[in-house]
């Protein structure tokens, strides 16, 4: 009996009722028109209030939090785009691996790629990125730092628009230098002399702290020394390798002698940025090579050396110029995205001067636009940014070749061998040059 109450749930009941109702032609016509109308109406309504396009990008978790306020202002101005910044690991090599596997598997879920400058040649050569040259005029490009733009190019085409820059530089202790009346050093020899005289009077325990572990930071640091000694790594045009030239060997020798003369602790062979920064910040050291991020930390409230630190472009050999390793991050557009125009609007917004300014004032990163270094609001907050422009403008690129990751690993391995006394600088650099040449031929 109860089943009868539930009969209406069965489709057959509905169907027979509908058949009975539409049995006459007139009724049938009315129902048909009503059905058609409702379909058209709902389609029109769906189109008029179309859902926002979702644009996804994978970013280190730490930075997604820092970008939050920029994302909010972007979405407020662009209600038709839903920017989805996916939190990735904080280690950048892991983010690179995640992008790599998503592209290798095809149909990447990311419309944008938040890229370190050294990924550009590889990602571009693999055909995963969309060319962006047509979207920016020369005048617009000229507002960015040259190094940041050139680092975003591969074989002439632009693949990445920079949103923040980076470059290595020399940090020095103003108070210790004043003690002996020394000016900030320009050359490696001057730096060694100042270090040794402060170390011999026990005013400082260590002279110079740098990054000597076998990792990407070692290549970045060495690029600066190479430039400062007038050498080169790989010429991107001729593909010539310069690692076994006398200038390169002299650069290795100079770094090795900082360890041999105890100007640097022998632990530098295992240091990354943070190990060097912590030791520098604890007092006791005169010089440090590091990136701009360290400035805020060594001048922090809990730092014993706050207010006693100066920065300047990297030291070099007499008669040469100083070099800073060009770093930095920017956006590229994934070739497989179904929404390239919406993705471009994100890139345009995030690299714009107002967005960068907002981001920098909140997070103390380095802008990729020249004008922002002297922006009154930014200078009021960070008085050293005009000095920073000098550093960043002397920035040199790591070789923009597709096999960069391999070339860098070769260099790191043999530099590490030289610094830990496994090989002499000559032998290490000859082996590095030999393997790099073999790599570029293959």
């Amino acid at each position, binding site marked *: 009996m109860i089943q009868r109450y539930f009969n209406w749930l069965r489709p057959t009941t509905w169907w027979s009722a509908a058949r009975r109702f539409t049995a006459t032609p007139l009724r049938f016509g009315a129902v048909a028109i009503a059905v058609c109308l409702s379909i058209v109406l709902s389609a029109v309504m769906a189109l008029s209030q179309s859902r926002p396009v979702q644009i996804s990008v994978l970013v280190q978790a730490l930075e997604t939090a820092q970008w939050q306020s920029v994302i909010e202002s972007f979405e407020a101005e662009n209600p038709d785009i839903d920017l989805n910044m996916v939190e990735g690991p904080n280690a950048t090599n892991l983010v690179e*691996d995640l992008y*790599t596997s998503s592209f290798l598997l095809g149909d990447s879920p990311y419309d944008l790629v938040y890229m370190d400058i050294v990924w550009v040649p590889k990602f571009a050569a693999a*055909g995963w990125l969309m060319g962006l040259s047509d979207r920016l005029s020369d005048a617009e490009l000229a507002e960015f730092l040259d190094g940041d733009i050139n680092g975003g190019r591969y074989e002439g085409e632009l693949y990445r628009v920079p949103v923040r820059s980076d470059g290595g530089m020399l940090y020095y202790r103003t108070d210790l230098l004043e003690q002996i009346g020394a000016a900030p050093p320009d050359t490696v020899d001057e730096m060694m002399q100042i270090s040794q005289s402060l170390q011999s009077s026990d005013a400082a325990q260590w002279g110079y702290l740098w990054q000597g572990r076998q*990792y990407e930071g070692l290549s970045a640091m060495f690029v600066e020394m190479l430039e400062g000694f007038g050498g080169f790594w790989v010429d991107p045009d001729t593909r010539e390798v310069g690692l076994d030239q006398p200038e390169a060997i002299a650069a290795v020798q100079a770094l090795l002698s900082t360890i041999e003369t105890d100007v640097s602790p022998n632990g530098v062979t295992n240091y990354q940025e943070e190990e060097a920064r912590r030791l520098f910040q604890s007092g006791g050291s005169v010089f440090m090579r590091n990136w701009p991020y360290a400035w805020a930390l060594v001048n922090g409230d809990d730092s014993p050396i706050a207010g006693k630190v100066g920065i300047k472009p990297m030291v070099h050999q007499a008669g040469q110029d100083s070099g800073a390793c060009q770093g930095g991050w920017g956006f590229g557009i994934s070739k497989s995205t179904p929404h390239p125009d919406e993705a471009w609007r994100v890139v345009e917004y995030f690299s714009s001067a107002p967005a960068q300014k907002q981001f920098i004032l909140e997070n103390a990163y380095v802008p990729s636009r020249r004008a922002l270094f002297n922006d009154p609001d930014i200078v009021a907050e960070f008085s050293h940014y005009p000095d920073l422009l000098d550093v960043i403008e002397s920035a040199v690129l790591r070789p923009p070749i597709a096999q960069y990751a391999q070339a860098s690993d070769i260099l790191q391995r043999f530099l*590490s061998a030289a610094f*830990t006394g496994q090989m002499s600088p000559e032998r290490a650099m000859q082996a590095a040059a030999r393997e790099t040449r073999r790599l570029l031929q*293959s």
Partner: protein
Amino acid sequence: MASKIRTQEQATGWLLLLPAVLLLLLVFAYPIGRAFWLSLFTENLGTNLQPVFSGVSNYGRMAVDSRFWQSIWNTSLFTALALTLELVIGMAIALLLNQSFKGRGIVRTVAILPWALPTALIALTWAWIFNDQFGVWNDILLRLGIIQNPVNWLGEPTLALLATVAADVWKTTPFVSILLLAGLQAISEDLYEAHAIDGASPWQSFRRITLPLLLPQILIAMLFRFAQSFGIFDLVQVMTGGGPAGSTEMVSLYIYATVMRYLDFGYGAALVVVTFVILIIAVAIAALVINRLQKNSA
């Protein structure tokens, strides 16, 4: 009549085996065959990630690749050191746990703990223990007066390799000792009693009874450990990343870099094939030895 039933039964037998055989082909034979096939091609950024047939050129390249040979050497050294230490310490722990004493159950459980913890976490902990400035190991040695200045454990090629071995031994010795303990418990007490009555010392009993009867377990434990430690990745990746000077770069780290970072798929496949062949040969030798020993004892 009987033979007809027999063929039918055989056919049914094969039919029942089919799913298992298909599964094996799918998960073992196909990937290995595919890796071998891929190793005959050049597929990297130089070819725009398109496969180009290149015969055995990848293998030729491997012959002159000093980094590959160094990684094979590192892996062999790591495996040999770790296996020896694990066997000796694992045996000592197993003998100890085989004795009956108060609270043995708890001690056995605690002893297996390091093996149950996630390797990446362990590796991070050991990296801090061996840190030159903040590490607890240097602190202990300094306090005991064994060293005068902090030692740069992870920054010196030889020391770094030893440090990774130490971490691996700490982590996997429990596995060896549990396997050996199982073997020990299968040896009858009567044998030792009879041997003792004949006037044998404990050391003689160990050599004449325990070792020969435990040999199968020892070999099986070593086989497992060999296969695992030859493919070691997470521990080393987290502790040293392969440095300094490539002194702790294991084969698996090199393969990972070749495929994931260099996007050199053909060469990466060739590396996989050669490592696979080396492993197969080693395992085959071990299996042969085990087989012979079992025949001898039977």
